[in-house]
């Protein structure tokens, strides 16, 4: 069964907003990272759907690009999480606000 394009876009938009909400609301940096992953995947979903809609392979190529991007982002992000935890002994993002003002 082929899911209509609009519905896929709708799901993608919902996922994106969910991720954004996660970033804005959660203070735990692990959850923030996961929310970023969700936002990326929503964008990837939109690409796949768009590629299918216009019969172009570009959407799938973009999907693979986003997949690698997400992988590298996760590794860098986790390294940062480790460093933040070592320095501040907490995972609260608001603790790392020394650059304010």
């Amino acid at each position: 069964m082929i899911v209509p394009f609009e519905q896929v876009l709708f799901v993608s938009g919902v996922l994106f907003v969910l991720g954004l909400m996660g970033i804005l609301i959660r203070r735990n940096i692990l959850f923030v990272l996961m929310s970023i992953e969700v936002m990326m995947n929503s964008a990837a979903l939109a690409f796949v759907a768009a590629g299918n809609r216009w019969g172009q392979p570009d959407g799938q190529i973009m999907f693979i690009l986003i997949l690698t991007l997400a992988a590298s982002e996760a590794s860098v992000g986790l390294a940062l999480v480790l460093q933040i935890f070592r320095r501040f002994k907490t995972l609260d993002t608001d603790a790392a606000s020394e650059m304010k003002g």
Partner: protein
Amino acid sequence: MYDLLFLVFALPLAGFLILAFGRGRLGENGAAAVGVGSVGGAALVTAGLVAQFLGHPPDGGAYTQVLWDWMKVGGFTPHFALRLDGLSLTMLGVITGVGFMIHLFASWYMRGDDGYSRFFSYMNLFVASMVFLVLGDNLLFLYFGWEGVGLCSFLLIGFWYKDAANGSAARKAFIVTRVGDTFMAIGLFWLFRSLGTLDIQQVLQLAPQAFDSESGRQAVRGIALLLLGGAVGKSAQLPLQTWLPDAMAGPTPVSALIHAATMVTAGVYLIARTHVLFELAPDVQHLVGVVGAVTLLLAGFTALVQTDIKRVLAYSTMSQIGYMFLALGAGAWSAAIFHLMTHAFFKALLFLSAGAVILACHHEQDIRKMGGLRKTLPLAFWCFVVGGGALAAVPYITAGFYSKDEILWQAYAGGHMDLFLAGLFGALLTSIYTTRLILVVFFGEEKTHAHAGHGVSYWLPLAVLLVLSTFVGGLIHPPLEGVLPAAPGEGGGAAQLGIEALSGSVAIGGILVTALVYFTRPRALLALAQAPAAQAVRRFWFSAFGFDWLYDRLLVRPFFWLVRVCSGDLFDQAIGTIPELLRHANVLSTRTQTGRMRWYAASFAAGAVLIVAAVMFRG
């Protein structure tokens, strides 16, 4: 060999860049190696050039090395070119040769100073600018080098910037010479308007025809006057001479290199370089001589009563440059350059040995607190005797005699009796103050305990300059034929011998009288010196004829008053609102930097939504 000419300029510049970007990472020995080595390399190249120039002179007596076109503005395309002829070769020899000796001495003198590599980077930049000044074949380059040496002079006078007095001395030197530089710049603009070029050779060729009308004579008179304004500023002649004594705030090797041997003689070089313009304006040329004569007398009287060892030497420099100006005014171009060269030798020697004395006496510069240093500092003593002898022009055995006598003879032979008499009287003053300085510092009772220096970088420069200050320096004959016109009295014969005998006996007489007064101390003379009138004259001379006082009342205070009056006016307030607004905007934008990542992400998202909405509703 000639195509290595650019190295003379490029090596010190490279030394400056290495030291400036090395920023103290090189250590003292590294900095000394780079700073002294680069100037030494330039001196070696110069020595090779001299050998080639004397052996196989280039066609037409000059070699031009075009490096590239500097700029293209309409029909005005100055080449980036270096030109070597007899005059610039002489100057190169002085700058790199004496400069190398002074650098070597400085590597000893400055040891242990915080800014060791900074010192050498400035010194290298100075040498590069000065070489550029004398090699440029275009007045534009000359001006570029002219400003470059002015900058280095400013940086080095204020080298010990933690003392506010040094900073204000540096500013004074910069501002006073800037007055002269402005005159010179206007003169160059005028010259370009009249001739359409600033290429020195073209200027010298075109000038006689171009200025051959009544209005042309007026123009060339104005141009020559303006160039003279630039020269008196740089060379510390009346009326812009006040900066030179204060410039002694810099380290002593700086005084030796910049404020005695090279930079202050740039004015002499400029006038000799553009001699055709001055010959076309004879009254301005005579004015050059008069300026020199008045300055040499004024500085001579002032040097008689100074108590700071470096200030005595500073005023003597001023008066010796006065001699060079006198020679230029009398049309004795070669004699002026010859005196420039010998003066560089013996004045560098005097300043370096003064530096040795100052360091040996633990940074004491007051000659009244010295005395009897003859036994503890024998090398410095002999340097002072030879250098002072050359300064006072002791006949036949010193370099200074040959050049100064040449000047006096040319002034006499050219019929400039006023200049000749002023020069002769100046020679008497010179021998008196020089003898006084040596007697006070090296004879009498010992007042401080001095520590003599040691090491090859201490005695070698002194020894070399010592030899050059004797008759050996007088034997060097600058190859100036064909570059500068012949003076009126070449090959004088019996009359010249008479002048030699006269000036020689004046010098020796001054020395003998001073020594006699010093050792016998006649009571009548001492009583006379204590009289109120004599004390008033002494104070007047000590203040260098009150020029600082006059300029302070005439220019500095009115300027500060004007600044104070203008500081709260409408324009000032209007301009003041701009930084006020910026400060408020700054406070506001600082508030947005909360340091909370979520807040940034939210504003990010809100911004994105706004942009997307704007795009959608617009289309």
